[in-house]
């Protein structure tokens, strides 16, 4: 069963509806017990790192997500759901994440010289992937997806990077490690390309 974790940070209907449109039933769940009964788990999220981490730790969802990963079941993190998988986030202070993947989440520095780009990084950017991961099957290199974020992850182990995008400099757009994958962009807002990515996750059997 595919399920989307609701921890009060986002409208999940668009994610659920996107899966349903692809023929995959998707439940919205809230408790650690429900996570234990889930096969494919989606952790979405918008908002602040600290607030989201607080909710996950207080509700026991954090431990349930870690158990889910250790049991080898598939996990897809989206946006903040990617960032929370790492050790720490540096949004409004330094806060602990789920520490499933080694590394940290930092603010884009590209609004300073020499780049002087706008932050948040907001809009459609093209993906470049160097690994043949199941998530991008059926897509062309350079496919555009929708991003909206001010922070991005810096993994300790660059081998987990599945795709990058370019904003002044390359940044991590997707990671893939064993049964865990996560994306900085919003597949549920990325029209056909996003639908393909969600479909690939739903149909992926590790």
């Amino acid at each position, binding site marked *: 069963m595919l399920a989307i974790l609701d921890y009060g940070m986002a409208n999940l209907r668009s994610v659920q*509806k996107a899966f349903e449109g692809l023929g995959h039933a998707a439940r919205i769940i809230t408790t650690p017990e429900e996570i234990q009964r889930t096969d494919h788990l989606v952790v979405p999220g918008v908002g602040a790192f600290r607030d989201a981490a607080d909710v996950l730790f207080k509700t026991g969802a954090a431990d349930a997500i870690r158990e889910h990963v250790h049991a080898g079941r598939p996990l897809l993190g989206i946006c903040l759901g990617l960032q929370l998988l790492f050790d720490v986030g540096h949004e409004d202070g330094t806060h602990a994440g789920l520490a499933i993947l080694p590394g940290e989440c930092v603010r884009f520095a590209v*609004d300073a010289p020499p780049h002087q780009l706008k932050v*948040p990084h907001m809009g459609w950017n093209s993906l470049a992937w160097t690994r043949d991961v199941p998530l991008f099957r059926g897509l062309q290199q350079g496919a555009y997806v929708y*991003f909206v974020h001010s922070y991005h992850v810096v993994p300790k182990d660059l081998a987990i990077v599945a795709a990058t995008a370019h904003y002044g400099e390359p940044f991590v757009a997707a990671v893939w490690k064993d049964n865990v994958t996560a994306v900085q962009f919003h597949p549920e*807002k*990325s029209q056909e390309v996003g639908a393909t990515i969600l479909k690939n996750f739903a149909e992926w059997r590790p």
Partner: protein
Amino acid sequence: MLAKRIIPCLDVDRGRVVKGVKFFDHVDAGDPIEQAIFYDRGHADELVFYDISASHEGRGIMAEVVRRVAEVVFMPITVGGGIRTLEDATALIQAGAEKVSVNSAAVKRPELIREISAKFGRCATVLGLDANRVKDGDGIERWRVFVNGGRVDTGVEVMAWVKEAQALGAGEIVLNVMNADGTQAGYDLEMTAAVSEAVTIPVVASGGAGSPEHMLRVLQEGKADAALAASIFHFRTYSVGQVKEYLAERGVPIRR
């Protein structure tokens, strides 16, 4: 590379899509759901729904419109118009809006920007403003912020307001220049460029789009990160695809 965004704007009055000329003369022409599907298939980069009735007539229908649209299209949706409180913003985001755009109420109570940003993040918090070039008794032109659908001059200076909004937590500015709005005579390039250079958050240009060339100019000379238009798309003068083709041929980074 980040693409410049092309954003159709749908003005909504009590659940129906309308488009005004110079703000006051509205023509009823469409169902928001059908419009959204049309623009989604046409690869619009984002949709803006602007509730033009809400500022002075009440609201509530908009959240239901957003909910129905979000069921059928998978693209970013921004909703503006008549958002007065954190509760208004919450209802729209919970209905499926990616971002909410505050306008008049934020001028009256700037803390509204901070409240929405604290709850939903900078990425979901947009400042929309209606700007106009006005001359006071001294004959000197000034750029001022107007509210209530462009009816009331607040006396607030455009440049000061956009910087304050960014400091309060806005993650994007939609600059609608009223002198240009509905004229299809082109965006206000000078004001758009000045605002875009004064802030470090993205700026969406609005008001005056009549041709793909206008969009090219506001994305280049106007330094806008995105171009919003209503009439030229709504009346099918140009499709989003035609605009994008024109821009791509001239070297603008565009998602096809």
